């Protein structure tokens, strides 16, 4: 795991059909320490997904730099694992084939891959579903696969793009708790994009509030770990922090 730094990152889109251009991200600088968990929140259209897509290398940068472990990155690469809102599991590959896709691409042998699959499926509590196809799993289970697929490739940074937005509320809470558990065990560097304020406060060490392509405020979340909804839902600090972030987002 490594640190992540954004230096004066900007993105300008040009719409040829409307003949206009707009700035989605404007001069954003951000530091994520090695092993840190940062959540980015903001109203829709604030540029948070664009930032993630630039870090992942899916969309080109207009200006600025992205550094992973001090090294500048361009284009997508296995050093930055991505978890998608749409899960983006390969429908024609079984759960364990999905999880070991990254290692397979790196030329890891079959026996080694089987070990990786076993380890990470156990981490996600999915050992029983190894040979099923994604389509045969519930949304929550699919996204568990999505998370461990990214982790199994040993990325330096884990990028999560509203990963729990399309699962039901119950499952979402379970997944959030599992994610904090995994983070506490393995300390990956995580950038987590969401529009859900309580999700951001629950998960992260630091919440970055974006507004119109700019960083409005960074809020530290000094809540103790391990975190669970049973405890935090009644916790005054959690409520106060959530409220603070919510006010910032609403003013954004």
């Amino acid at each position, binding site marked *: 795991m490594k640190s992540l730094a954004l230096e004066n990152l900007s993105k300008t889109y040009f719409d040829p059909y409307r003949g206009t251009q707009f700035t989605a991200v404007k001069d954003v600088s951000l530091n994520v320490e090695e092993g840190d968990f940062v959540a980015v929140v903001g109203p829709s259209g604030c540029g948070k997904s664009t930032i993630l897509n630039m870090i*992942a*290398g*899916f969309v080109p940068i207009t200006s600025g730099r992205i550094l992973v472990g001090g090294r500048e990155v361009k*284009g*997508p*690469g*296995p050093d*930055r*694992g*991505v978890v*998608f809102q*749409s899960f*983006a*599991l*390969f*429908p*024609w*590959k079984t759960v364990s084939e999905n999880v070991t*896709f*990254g290692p397979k*691409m*790196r030329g890891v042998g079959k026996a080694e891959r089987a070990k990786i699959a076993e380890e990470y499926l156990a981490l996600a509590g999915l050992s029983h579903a190894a040979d099923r*196809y*994604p*389509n*045969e799993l519930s949304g929550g289970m699919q996204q568990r696969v999505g998370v461990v*697929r*990214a982790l199994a*490739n040993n990325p330096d940074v884990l990028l999560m793009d509203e990963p729990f937005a399309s699962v039901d509320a119950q499952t979402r809470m379970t997944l959030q708790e599992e994610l904090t558990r995994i983070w506490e065990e393995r300390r990956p560097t995580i950038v987590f994009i969401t529009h859900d304020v309580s999700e951001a406060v629950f998960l992260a060490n630091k919440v970055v509030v974006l507004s119109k392509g700019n960083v409005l405020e960074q809020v530290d979340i000094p809540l103790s770990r391990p975190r669970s909804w049973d405890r935090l839902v009644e916790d005054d600090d959690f409520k106060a922090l959530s409220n603070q972030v919510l006010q910032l987002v609403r003013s954004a």
Partner: protein
Amino acid sequence: MMAIYTLWGYYARWTARWPMLAAFIPFIPLIAIWAFIVWLELFPRVFLPGPLDVIGKAWELTYKGILGDYLIDSLSRLAVGAAAGIAIAIPLGIFIGLNKRAHEFSWPILLFFQAIGDIAWLPILLVWFGFGLTTMTFVIVYTVLFPIVLNTVLGIRSAKPDLHRAAQSLGAPRGRILLEVTLPGALPNIITGLRNGLGYGWRALIAAEIIVGTSGIGFLMFDARRAGSVDEIVVGMIVLGILWYIVDSWLLAPIERATGERWGLVTK
């Protein structure tokens, strides 16, 4: 009314146990109605033969060996033409689907040549190659080709961007992305194209056999037309129907289901 419900109950139970029956039983009342209309003698027998006449004729043609020979002729023509068509179409479709320039250039041409349609080629093919196997093979290859190429292109171009991105960020090189992500994603489309292509190709074969044929089911039917033997025509039609029904529902549809539906790419 009660009797119908009772029968329906039996039908529902039987088909639940042997789903295959659902493909046969509905034909029983149809044949009964057909026999009834013939028995009423609304139309002269030379225009509308009864089921027994047709069965008799089918037996006679089978016994003489004509039906079997012609069937093999038609099927082998279709198989050769389809195999050649598929072998050209899929690589071509992949190439055009991956290459933006090639796509822009060839798409209108593909649409235009598909629009001309197989059968319109027959006259000029007859000028070029005469009445023979080359003409027929050309027509079938031509017919099978376009639906497969067009659908392969469509499948490759409609690949989900998130899957491509996921593969990229997991470190897959371009070749592997094509092999492991793009092609499987296009597979349901390719199979649809195959199904359409064979559907068109099979009709083109019949037309070609009618117009240029010296053997085959299409020729059998048209020869019977010349002789005014309507029961032989009906035998030909039924054989064609059964044949295609078998190919489509026992060969093509299961492949489609096994890939598309299991993977959740086709919503049924």
